[in-house]
């Protein structure tokens, strides 16, 4: 299941610059709104679901090398965060759904690590 398929099936909005999402394949997932937990728990290649939309999620995403951040419940990062994400190659996705729903769907799609 590549990132493009996930974006299509979960109907996610891409906030950062478009890329070849089909070439990115998430190897697992992690959910938390606490950045320390994400630092410890999110591994390289994971998708991270959170309702945090603050600038600091970009640094955490870059350091953990997650494949994408899915921001839930329509939380909106500001323009500076999106710029920074683009500069650091971080993919930010957005959805109106709850973290719980998104996690359930990701699990259904086979992202189970």
């Amino acid at each position, binding site marked *: 299941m590549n990132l493009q398929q996930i974006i299509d099936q979960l109907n996610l909005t891409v906030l950062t610059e478009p890329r070849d999402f089909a*070439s990115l394949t998430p190897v697992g997932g992690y959910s938390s709104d606490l950045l320390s937990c994400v630092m*410890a728990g999110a591994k390289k290649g994971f998708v991270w679901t959170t309702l945090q939309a603050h600038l600091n999620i970009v640094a955490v995403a870059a350091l953990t090398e997650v494949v994408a951040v899915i921001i839930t419940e329509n939380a909106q990062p500001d323009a*500076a965060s999106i710029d920074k994400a683009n500069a650091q190659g971080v993919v930010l996705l957005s959805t109106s759904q709850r973290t719980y729903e998104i996690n359930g769907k990701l699990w259904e799609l086979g992202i189970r690590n």
Partner: protein
Amino acid sequence: MCPPNRTPTEQEVHGRRGRPITDHDANEINRVEELAYDLKVREVMTADVRTANPEMPLSKVLDILRTNRISGLPVVEDDKLVGVLSLEDIVRALQKNDLSAPTGQYMTREAVTVASYESIVEAIRTFTERQLGRLPVIDENQNLVGMITKGDITRGILVALQKDYKIEEVRRYRASHLFEDIISDRTTLVLRYTIKAGDFTQGGQASSYIKRALLRLGADPQITRRCSIAVYEAEMNLIIHTTNGGILKLEVEPHRITMSTSDDGPGMADTEIVFQPGYSTATEHVREMGFGAGMGLVNMKRCVDEIKLESAVGKGSKLVMRIFIPDQTVGVSRNGKNDEPSTNH
């Protein structure tokens, strides 16, 4: 076509950005797209070009085409491009049995061209729109300076991508040999970062510089990950909890990596309780941003082999963390140590 007196582009002034790329970047189309704008026609074109002049008999041009196995020639008079002659034009002449006619009589004037100072994306556009396979390249004075084909563009992009790779490879190579090339009884590389209190916009910046430095030095990815986590938590603590910010320091030696922070306040009375999972003094405002989980020092402790925290209220705190590297080389994973910090929240 741009007029000769145009203002130079940003890239012409500052040069092509020789941005080193990661393996990750290389898989993406973005860089190629970027190169289509970055690379100029003159960088990829063939400069050594066969030409004809308007007086040249067609039979002679046909010879040139045949011996060079090409299907057309730019026609030049006093260095200026005046037309192109293709095999089709020669076929027209053949039908009239007129191969002794001068080139000027059968050539196509108003040739489609591309300027040498344009981005190759311009040439790609022209190829697509006009369904042409090769284009004469002219300079600001309409002088012919070369020819460009689709093959030239592909080759140019591949060479540029390879160059990007090499730059990063060379950097990595040089850095990873640092400790072998410099001989001393004890070599230490010290990186120092000033962290401002409350500056959340820069949060994590020093940590990403440190991560990149360690990878360039050839450190094992797992050790780099452990350092990144520890140093990020330490960096955020300086931003969140100090009065005036502090200094974040990384000392790399062949056998160990030392990360430390020091600040001048406010300091804490109890340096044990902060290691309790969930203990936090973060304000509501900071918690809203996702900090204050009370896991910072817990994370740090998990990631390093040795951690020491000293603090005095009103004076400040000093935190020292160490990761030991066996075999005296940066780049070897530590045996017996769990590389991934475990998570149980």
